[in-house]
């Protein structure tokens, strides 16, 4: 039971961590909660759904399909996120802090209803293109999908980490998150970096959406809301704006959810997540690993 919950928790945690990265990166750079991120996650899941359903011919090349699906979704949801930033957030960059949040909620309502009206209001079964093998050892059941989700998420996170730490663009992102004006003076194209941040965050969110669809086997137009809040909780848990923190926070939250579903009650697992969110925001708004940030006046 215990190890089984760890396995389930790590799988969930991988999805939350990928999604949390989007929240934390955007917050790090713009100090705003990208409320529409959960909708990018949803659109990503639908993207994967479409590509998987229109490509049954390529069944023999499942590896190829997999790469194609993830790459296409990464690009589409990344572009969507960039597009949202340009339309809904950029004009509000100098507005009071709550304005972009309200605009993001508007985007969220819009996208949800767009998908609901143009696709379906019912949940759709996710196409299963790959055979899922079960492995059983001493009471723990692991399936190949869980292993795949975990490994894939870890790989993406390592790539992101390398990108941010080692490349010039990554360093420009770090600089921009510290100070827009000074970065601009150093010759960084701040708007470009912001777009890039939305692109990467959105792309990872879209991929998380596909993984979520594969894991639960169904998608719905409002599927983004709960994972979105949970991933945001994860981002806060790790110290919002802190990329490593978001990854760790995602796994902590996934394991927490698995344990509360397994040991307390599966009905109340969401209540527990929300309680964690409230308690962390009240007691340690800087996150578990983050330094205490004092409010600038």
């Amino acid at each position, binding site marked *: 039971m215990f190890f089984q919950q760890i396995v389930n928790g790590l799988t969930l945690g991988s999805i939350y961590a990928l999604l949390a990265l989007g929240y934390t990166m955007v917050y790090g750079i713009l100090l705003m909660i990208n409320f529409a991120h959960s909708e990018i996650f949803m659109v990503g899941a639908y993207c994967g759904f479409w590509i998987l359903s229109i490509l049954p011919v390529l069944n023999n090349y499942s590896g190829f399909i997999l790469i194609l699906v993830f790459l296409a979704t990464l690009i589409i949801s990344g572009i969507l996120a960039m597009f949202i930033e340009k339309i809904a957030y950029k004009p509000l960059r100098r507005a009071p802090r709550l304005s972009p949040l309200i605009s993001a909620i508007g985007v969220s*309502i819009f996208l949800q209803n767009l998908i609901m009206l143009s696709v379906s209001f019912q949940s759709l079964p996710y196409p299963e293109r790959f055979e899922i093998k079960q492995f059983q050892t001493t009471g723990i059941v692991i399936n190949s999908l869980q292993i795949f989700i975990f490994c894939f998420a870890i790989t993406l996170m390592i790539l992101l980490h390398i990108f941010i730490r080692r490349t010039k663009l990554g360093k420009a992102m770090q600089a921009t998150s510290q100070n*827009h004006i000074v970065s601009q003076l150093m010759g960084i194209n701040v708007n470009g970096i912001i777009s890039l941040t939305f692109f990467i965050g959105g792309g990872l969110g879209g991929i998380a959406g596909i993984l979520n669809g594969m894991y639960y086997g169904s998608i719905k137009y409002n599927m983004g809301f709960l994972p979105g809040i949970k991933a945001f909780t994860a981002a806060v848990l790790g110290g919002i704006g802190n990329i490593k923190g978001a990854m760790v926070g995602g796994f902590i939250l996934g394991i927490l959810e698995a344990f509360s579903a397994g040991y307390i*009650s599966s009905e109340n697992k969401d209540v527990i997540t929300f309680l964690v969110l409230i308690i962390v925001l*009240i007691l340690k708004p800087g996150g578990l690993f983050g330094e205490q940030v004092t409010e600038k006046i």
Partner: protein
Amino acid sequence: MKFISNKIFLFSLAILLIIIFPIIFLRLNPYTVNIVALIGIYLILCLGLNITIGYTGLLDLGFMAFYAVGAYIAAILSTKGISFWITLPICMLAGGLMRYLLGLPLLKLRGDYLAIVTLAFGEIVRLVANNSVSITNGPKGLPRVGEKIMPIHIFSFVFQDNIHFYYLIFFFVIVSIIISYRIEHSRIGRALIAIREDEVAAELSGIGVARIKSVAFVLSGIFGSLAGAIYVHWIGFVSPEMFTFWESVFLVAMIVIGGMGNIFGVILGVFLLVGMPEILRSSLGTVFIDYRMLIFGMLMILIIIFRPQGLIPSKRRALELHTIEKD
């Protein structure tokens, strides 16, 4: 002096309109009274929420929680046979107390964190209502089979028809408008607006920021639970799915679109978002209803970008929102 009497004139005209409205429309289409009564419920909710969002500038994304608290307490007490006139103050007290306790740790938080915490709280209330079957009958809602919500009595008069509730609801709407108006133009209202515009400056000017914020927060909660208690007596049913996050967002949308911090703006927002779809439903058919949320989403984005003060702006709020923040 003339200005004041002008206001009183307008106000009495509005009351007269409210009173005679059903007499004209009931003959034509009884359904209209129903819609207007529903608008009344939303008016009470939004006027309450406006104290938090509009005056104090705190974004609350879980306001439906207090509507739920009012509705559930009213339903539970009422099925036990307790009169509405006793239930109502209990609901308001409970809503206010809960909001006070919630506000104690919350009000110290920064704006966007506060929004997220209220969101989480709203969802917790809904999920708890959904999961504690022994008290709330879970997703099936209250009253249980065989139970009944006590009708509202005034002496021997019993509230049965929509039209009775229409007058009851609009009585409370008028009270809410008067209270909102009095708050806005009182010392507390000015303190709230000062806090919204600059918390530090307000504190330095001698405003007890924590206390005043708490007052505003609690007042909102009382309005919310009041609306809930009335609604449950009117409709005679309550279930957790009435209180989803999107319902709370819907309230915020009304206030944002209408005009934050302006009573007329809020009223317009409620009429636009609750009333218009119903009016257009009969003329444009149900297709419009499907697209309604899509349009609201777009409207929210457009308004916050191009007209952040809302359709009918509050003068001070407009000034504040147009000031470009220094980097």
